[in-house]
């Protein structure tokens, strides 16, 4: 029993092996296999001298994964059918590519491919003399099933197949909108890892919806909406900005994301502060010119000093508020304090960090602080109080050390008179110019403070001793 079973096993194995060998010998090598004997062996030397090396190498794996995995080589390369191998010569790679791209159209008719809007546009261009090259987007031997279109090559490669050429469209207003972009620009941008459809949502290898814009500005404003899909925090901040408010009022010149940041060439922010200031200059050129002459702007532009404030340091970048409001004005001491109370920055230039403190402890600073508290408590807002910029200027801030003291005083008097119209020549001296009173700077104030600081404790201690003595005497008398 046992022996018979063993013998049957051996017999079955032997039969299977014999059948397999027979089948192997009987099936002739397929046409495609024959081609791949040579073309699947990488790489094959160029076929012609003096031309760009062609690479008739075929990656077996890519071919097997492609939509054409079941298609025989000669079904596309019909000239090579039934063992023929004609010699082919091309002027250049472009010519070769164009020739081979035509092979696709042997099967894929115009009617079939125009079903996709993206092809319709390409065929229009073909009539204008720019031949579309299927393989630019779809690849050749690795041609992928359309359902998995995104992995054709890269999506970017796919889109750039058209959009790296000077394609354009005419908008309703008659303006021409260029739809061209440059791979180099894309690769150099902060977004080089993104796919086109990450921003141009709605577009893909399958979808190329028709968009209708009235003007180029309309298109720019609408496009910048896609930024908020990722940068929602910045978007919500812009909603509070004066730029957004102006845009909302219908002024289309108000800047949107792409006006400052650029679109395909979007750069990393904060790398070059001078660049940031120049962005604002695009619209605010007069302010920029004034700023460029100021102590801050001059240091930025001529000395490449990265410590000085640029526009966005005071005005903020996204939530830029109207600088003419009382709220902004009242916040100015804080704005200046960002740098002028910072010992690390001020130390480099030998500037005092007491300027904000001395301001806040003087009459104006105290009043301003109370007004701000009152506003928080929803009491009626106070009057505008002189803050840093009222004496020092805003975009035209100059160094006081380098200015003529008489000129400074004259300007200060004019400033004082804005709120104190009856102020006379002596009046500006009431301000101790941010100095803490010392024997040199404000001797009388210093001496008054000093004498009270000495006399007050003596008086209080003396009086308390008197009181204690009195109580002691009373207790002893009892």
């Amino acid at each position, binding site marked *: 029993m046992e022996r018979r079973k063993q013998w049957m096993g051996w017999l079955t194995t032997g039969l299977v092996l014999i059948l397999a060998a027979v089948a192997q010998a009987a099936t002739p090598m397929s046409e495609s296999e024959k081609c791949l004997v040579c073309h699947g062996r990488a790489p094959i030397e160029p076929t012609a001298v003096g031309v760009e090396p062609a690479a008739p190498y075929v990656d077996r794996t890519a071919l097997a994964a492609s939509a054409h995995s079941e298609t025989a080589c000669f079904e596309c390369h019909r000239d090579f059918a039934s063992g023929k191998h004609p010699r082919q010569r091309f002027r250049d790679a472009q010519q070769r590519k164009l020739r081979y791209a035509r092979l696709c159209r042997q099967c894929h008719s115009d009617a079939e491919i125009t079903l996709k809007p993206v092809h319709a546009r390409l065929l229009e261009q073909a009539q204008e003399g720019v031949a579309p090259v299927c393989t630019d987007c779809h690849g050749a031997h690795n041609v992928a099933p359309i359902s998995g279109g995104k992995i054709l090559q890269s999506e970017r490669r796919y889109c750039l197949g058209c959009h790296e050429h000077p394609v354009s469209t005419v908008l309703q207003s008659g303006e021409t909108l260029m739809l061209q972009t440059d791979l180099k620009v894309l690769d150099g941008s902060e977004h080089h890892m993104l796919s086109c459809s990450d921003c141009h949502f709605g577009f893909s290898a399958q979808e190329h919806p028709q968009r209708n814009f009235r003007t180029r500005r309309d298109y720019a404003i609408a496009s910048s909406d896609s930024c908020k899909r990722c940068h929602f925090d910045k978007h919500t901040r812009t909603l509070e900005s004066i730029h957004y408010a102006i845009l909302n009022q219908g002024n289309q010149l108000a800047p949107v994301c792409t006006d400052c940041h650029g679109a395909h060439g979007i750069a990393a922010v904060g790398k070059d502060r001078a660049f940031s200031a120049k962005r604002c200059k695009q619209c605010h050129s007069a302010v920029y010119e004034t700023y460029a002459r100021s102590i801050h702007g001059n240091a930025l532009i001529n000395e490449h000093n990265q410590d000085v404030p640029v526009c966005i340091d005071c005005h903020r970048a996204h939530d830029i508020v109207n600088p003419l409001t009382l709220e902004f004005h009242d916040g100015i001491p804080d704005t200046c304090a960002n740098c002028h109370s910072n010992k690390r920055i001020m130390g480099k230039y030998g500037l005092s960090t007491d300027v904000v403190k001395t301001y806040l402890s003087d*009459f104006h600073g*105290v*009043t301003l*602080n*109370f*007004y701000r*508290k*009152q506003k928080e*408590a929803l*009491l*009626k807002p*106070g009057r505008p109080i002189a803050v840093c910029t009222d004496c020092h200027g805003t975009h035209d801030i100059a160094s006081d050390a380098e200015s003529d003291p008489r000129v400074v005083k004259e300007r200060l008097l004019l400033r004082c008179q804005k709120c*104190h119209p*009856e*102020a*006379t020549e*002596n*009046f*500006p*001296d*009431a*301000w*101790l110019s941010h100095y803490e*009173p010392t024997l040199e700077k*404000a001797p*009388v*104030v210093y001496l*008054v*403070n000093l004498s*009270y600081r000495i*006399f*007050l404790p003596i*008086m*209080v201690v003396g*009086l*308390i001793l*008197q*009181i204690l*003595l*009195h*109580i*002691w*005497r*009373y207790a*002893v*008398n*009892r």
Partner: protein
Amino acid sequence: MKQQPRRGESIRRFSPLRLTEHWVNAGAIVVLVLTGLAQKFHTLEASQWFVLRVGGIDTIRLIHHAAGAVVILLTLQHILVAFFLVVVRKAQPGMLISRKDFADTLDNLRYYFGVRQSPAVCDRYDYKQKFEYWAILTGQILMTVSGLILWFPTWAARFLPGEFIPVAKALHTNEALLIFLLIAVWHIYNAIFSPDVFPLDTSIFTGRISRERMVHEHPLELARMEGIPVEEVLKERREEMHLLDAQGFLQH
């Protein structure tokens, strides 16, 4: 012949004018101290709470100026009345500081330390009262001048150097603290917590003082009022103090 008040009786010490002066000055100073300290210590949470509660810094300053104006008028009135009384009425200026006040101070210190048997023999105002009176009067004059400079800085800068404005501020804020401490420590003790008057020295409110206290605190004035030699008053004082001593002794 003067009317002679006897033991247990009370004597008129202050006229209604002085009572009114005290009321007005006390009220104004309370207001000035509250609204002033809130500005001096503006960073304190309590000051900010108080300022917002009153209705904002402008309201605080308005109240401070109004109370300041009251003190200015009161001080002016006081000086004018004093001038009138002394020059026209030829009244005795009881608040003038004399050499005797310094002697009294030393006498009293000796008494406190037990070197001397009895306290100093004082007139209508003792040296403590004179010190406080002059500290407050000069203080109020200083506060008036510096306060007016701060209230009307542009006006002040017309005939004063600009630096006088921060000087006025330093003076105002320091002198304010001095007056505040003087009242909070010295005046409140002498008028309320001193064992001589506890729980309250009512003479500035009623205008009257007991003859007993006159014997102890103002023997010279009492002797003059009653037309008796001061020795008699002092004898009375000694007897009462011995009585006190005896009582103390018995209690032990």
